[in-house]
């Protein structure tokens, strides 16, 4: 990433302009051509610097009231194979191996689930438990009760290196 990529990032991290030609709008803000903006965005997408250009919905407003962070205490030896299996379930949006904080936090496998009904969420948790079987010692589900902040990634302009 160079200085111009950083400028593109700073100009778009709050969102893409809602103008008929958004890349042209960005180009004018940054002082380069629209072709260059598009080329650089494509390159950043290919390199994985940009995961994708897309809309992120608020789960609650789409009716997904039951958003649970399911956390599981599983064998360290089996966690990679199990994590991949959980990640492949169609209702899991994020799945990670994270560190335990013993003794009070024994969980090392995290999977986020989303459902419109409590019964649906319970069914999803049952499916995960069945999949983990005896590899899992204990688990908990932490439902979110409120979004306190959701701005996405922000990098302040003052940190853009010259």
């Amino acid at each position: 990433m160079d200085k111009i990529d950083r400028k593109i990032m700073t100009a778009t991290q709050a969102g893409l302009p809602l103008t008929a030609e958004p890349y042209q709008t960005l180009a004018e803000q940054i002082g380069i051509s629209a072709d260059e903006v598009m080329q650089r965005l494509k390159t950043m997408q290919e390199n994985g610097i940009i995961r994708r250009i897309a809309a992120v919905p608020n789960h609650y407003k789409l009716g997904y009231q039951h958003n649970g962070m399911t956390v599981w205490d599983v064998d360290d030896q089996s966690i990679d194979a199990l994590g991949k299996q959980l990640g492949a379930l169609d209702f899991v949006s994020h799945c990670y191996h994270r560190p335990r904080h013993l003794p009070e936090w024994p969980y090392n496998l995290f999977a986020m689930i989303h459902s419109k009904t409590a019964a649906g969420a319970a069914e999803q948790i049952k499916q995960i438990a069945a999949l983990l079987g005896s590899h899992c010692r204990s688990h908990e589900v932490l439902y979110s009760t409120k979004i306190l902040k959701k701005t996405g990634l922000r990098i302040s302009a003052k940190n853009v290196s010259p």
Partner: protein
Amino acid sequence: MDKIDRDIINTLQDGFPICPSPYKQVAQHINITEQELITRLEKLLETGVLSRFGPMYHAEQMGGALSLAAIKAPAKDFASIAESINAFPEVAHNYAREHALNMWFVLATETPEQIQQVISKIEEKTGLTVYNMPKIQEYFVGLKLQA
């Protein structure tokens, strides 16, 4: 929210084209005009149905870092603690959850070292212990929620 809004949300969760008139291209796909798409998108963002629309940057690929962290916020101070924590620009998301660890937030910083620095600042500001849970391995990030 009507069927057109749902079509817009479902289509735009998948991705957005990089071409001179991308809204026009998407609008044609869902059979509305470019202007209607832009107007509806403005509304969906304004009303918070969409929390954002644009490029999703990958912190680690840019040399930055992400972490998930949690605290036990006493119920009586919950709102003011949320406010203090949300004031940090490095806090990208923050959720209230039902648990003794009742506030969970994602930190995004430009360098891996800054994660610990922000955590120290949050601990100093709130007087609470921050449980840092950076990912050891990522198995999946994705999912489209059907609108």
